[in-house]
């Protein structure tokens, strides 16, 4: 695993990904710090992080698009498969390397609140608490990006799906206000989601029977519950979108509360998507 980690880390620096990622993150945080902390003289550094979080929509796909797609394209995944490494070691090694690339600019950024505290009163606990949450949220987004990269051998395509997926997650709370909160609307969207789930299963397993089976069973279950107790679906969709948003949970930290359930949620997302990435890699052997 350490071999994969080291190789991936040096690859990020070979290909400039690490520099681009770091430079943009630092630039945006710098601009944010200038606007909020210096010009407007606000003492809360966490507002800067909240302002900057939108940039993840672009930066995370930049960081993750190559990570597995490129291996497939260059057929180096065959090397990884033939080496005495498990898919889990490969995925975790790569993920750790990306986390380090993400952590490096954050180390520089972590000096900022301390600098500001030299010139006035800064509530460092919230600043650093938010920074920790910022790191973990980024980690969750990176795991999603990594999974998307494992679905294709086209690097551009991996970024192309990554951007809308993260963008949707970013806006899902504001969108939640506009979507139908009626029971029927929620049930209908749920059915569409089950259909999509079926498509993903089909793509991963190439097993149409299983994909249709799972999809239809879930749709039937949803239909049955809707028929018996439609009130369960009342307002379900907007609530779901609010709950799934990674960014919304981050704002809790910005407002000064260190929310452990959100940390647990982020870790769940990380484990879940790394697991899916391992499955996606394994699937190459079983296609």
């Amino acid at each position: 695993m350490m071999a994969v980690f080291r190789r991936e880390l040096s690859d990020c620096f070979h290909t400039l990904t690490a520099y681009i990622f770091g430079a943009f993150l630092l630039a945006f945080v710098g601009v944010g710090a200038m606007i909020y902390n210096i010009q407007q003289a606000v003492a809360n550094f966490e507002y800067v992080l909240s302002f900057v979080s939108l940039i993840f929509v672009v930066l995370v796909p930049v960081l993750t698009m190559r990570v597995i797609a490129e291996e497939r394209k260059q057929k180096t995944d065959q090397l990884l498969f033939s080496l005495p490494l498990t898919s889990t070691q490969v995925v975790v090694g790569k993920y750790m390397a990306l986390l380090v690339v993400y952590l490096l600019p954050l180390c520089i950024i972590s000096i900022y609140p301390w600098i500001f505290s030299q010139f006035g009163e800064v509530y460092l606990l919230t600043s650093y608490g938010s920074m920790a949450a910022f790191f973990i949220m980024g980690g969750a987004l990176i795991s999603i990006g990594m999974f998307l990269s494992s679905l294709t051998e086209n690097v551009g395509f991996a970024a192309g799906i990554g951007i809308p997926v993260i963008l949707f997650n970013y806006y899902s709370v504001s969108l939640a206000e506009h979507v139908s909160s009626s029971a029927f609307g929620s049930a209908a969207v749920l059915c569409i989601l089950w259909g999509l789930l079926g498509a993903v299963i089909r793509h991963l397993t190439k097993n149409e029977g299983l994909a249709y089976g799972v999809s239809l069973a879930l749709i039937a279950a949803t239909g049955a519950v809707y028929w018996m107790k439609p009130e369960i679906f009342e307002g379900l969709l907007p609530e779901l979108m609010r709950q799934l948003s990674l960014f919304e949970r981050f704002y809790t930290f910005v407002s000064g509360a260190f929310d452990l359930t959100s940390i647990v949620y982020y870790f769940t997302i990380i484990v879940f998507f790394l697991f899916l990435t391992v499955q996606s890699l394994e699937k190459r052997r079983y296609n």
Partner: protein
Amino acid sequence: MVTVEHLTKRYGTFTAVDDLSFKIEEGHVYGFLGPNGAGKSTTMNIMTGCLSATEGQVKIDGYDIYEEPDKAKRRLGYLPEQPPLYMNETPWEYLKFVGEAKGLRGRELKSQMEAVILQTRLEGMEHRLIAKLSKGYKQRVGIAQALLGDPKIVILDEPTVGLDPIQIIEIRDLIRQLGQERTVILSSHILSEVQTICEKVLIIARGKLVAFDTPDNLEKLFQASHGVSFVAEAKAEEINEILRELDVISDWRMETMADGRIRVDVQAASGEASDLSRSLFFAFSRKKKALLELTPKKASLEDVFIELTETDVPGADVAEHESVDPFKNPAGSKSEESGVADR
């Protein structure tokens, strides 16, 4: 050393590898021969754990590649058809990664890296970018990678494809050298290559094993098709007349060459090719016709290969192949009716 049992790989309805079983002993160079799409790469990918099998099992030195992949893979070095290289690294960085992944550390890692660099003659190139290396050198980096960790078995998938003649000779020498201390399995569709470097040949067609023997034995297997080719200073009618009187001949075929002379391919009815040559020599000399050329024809590995991969062979396990193989070698079937292999 390597046991493959009832290996089958299906892609939907297409069967790429069909109930393949064979056993590979220690310390030889084995050739895996077959037309494009016969299932060579698929089999090799399964043997090295890159691909799962639909059915069957592969054991490397007694360890199942799926049940104990770590132990099995530590005994294997694999070079896939397209060398899996990281183009933006140098051979040194690349080999370091592979060595570390194979569990080598510190001094051991360094000494092995130096050894394989020396063995594959990569000295002087180890700090250049892989992307800038020539194809021959890229192939060497691929082979060097496979040799790290001192594996007992080295599997090379078409190691000489796309190289120039000098590079091919160098790589073949390297493979021969490897065969002295390890078991080497290489795949190829170049017959001369297999004939020169391999001690044993597995011929695979449509996912099935159709032959497994030494190149010499395989040629002997097809000695029935022996014949002689000659050029005589005579007219076609005269040649026909002489040949009709000889009972050692079963069939012949004439071909007029550019200079007007006639080349005749003769098929022996029985016995050795030398008996046929003797009879022809005396028959023509009695008629005062000179023989300008007289060449005995031996079935080459090429004939064996075409025979085995294009047609059903008695005894070989090619019972049903009604399914159309999209990759079937379009080399064309030889004139089977006359039994004379034209060259």
